């Protein structure tokens, strides 16, 4: 049986990596990818608790997280597409105005 503590530790490390990537990367697409890494790490801890407690609800909530991640990818990339029409490149430091 996989120890739940090890799964939670892995989840914390993955979340920290995603957090660093979100805060530090300059490319907006890579920032969105970092958000996906964070959501995946949350899924790992949900699945670990579901296994630990023999309760299916953790996995159901993980499914919801995956669905929301799909929506987030669609909305985020739509925003990036609209942004890249107005500015060359997808560097987050170039985006200093809310509208053009």
């Amino acid at each position, binding site marked *: 049986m996989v120890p739940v*503590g090890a799964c939670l530790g892995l989840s914390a490390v993955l979340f920290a*990596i995603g957090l*660093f990537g979100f805060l530090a990367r*300059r490319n907006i*697409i890579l920032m969105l990818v970092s958000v996906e890494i964070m959501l995946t790490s949350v899924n790992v801890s949900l699945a670990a608790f579901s296994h630990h407690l023999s309760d*299916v609800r953790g996995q159901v909530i993980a499914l919801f997280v995956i669905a929301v991640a799909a929506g987030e990818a*669609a909305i985020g990339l739509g925003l990036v597409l609209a942004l890249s029409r107005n500015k060359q490149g997808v560097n987050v430091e170039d985006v200093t105005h809310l509208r053009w």
Partner: protein
Amino acid sequence: MSTAGLVVFYYLAAASIASAILAITRHKPIHSLLWVLALFLHVAGIFLLVGAEFLAAVQVIVYAGAILVFYLFFLMLLDLPSEASAPRFSAHWPVSVVAGLAFATLIWYARDIPAALVPPAAAGAPRAGNLATIGKALFTEFAVPFEIVSLVLLSAIVGAVVMATRKTEP
């Protein structure tokens, strides 16, 4: 689950962390996305190890299959100017390192407290995770959130189309 299972788990965990680190440090966005693909596949393996077979399948099909391919398509569609010469990280990246390390200290609490805090299920309890129990939970206990998620996806589709449509007039 024996020693072999633990060895497989620690391999999957180490490979996940390595691919995540590689994913956020590569210069080219395509390389980053391919490393994220490796991360998602390893996480699917972890889901298999903890008995979440359906979640592993969804992880491979939806995350690695749909969302990541969506990102890759988008990256090719956008035709980015050369990123290789520009710096990868913004000027304040040490602050981000501190934030990440501060979060990673949660691993200290993850060591053995949850097992004491949350007692594991009884040995005779039915195993969660097969498709029938998940479907039953989705359509009975989680029926309302399930419908709300469908609305979230619908609004995401409409929102993406609205934002990505080119405006013809100023």
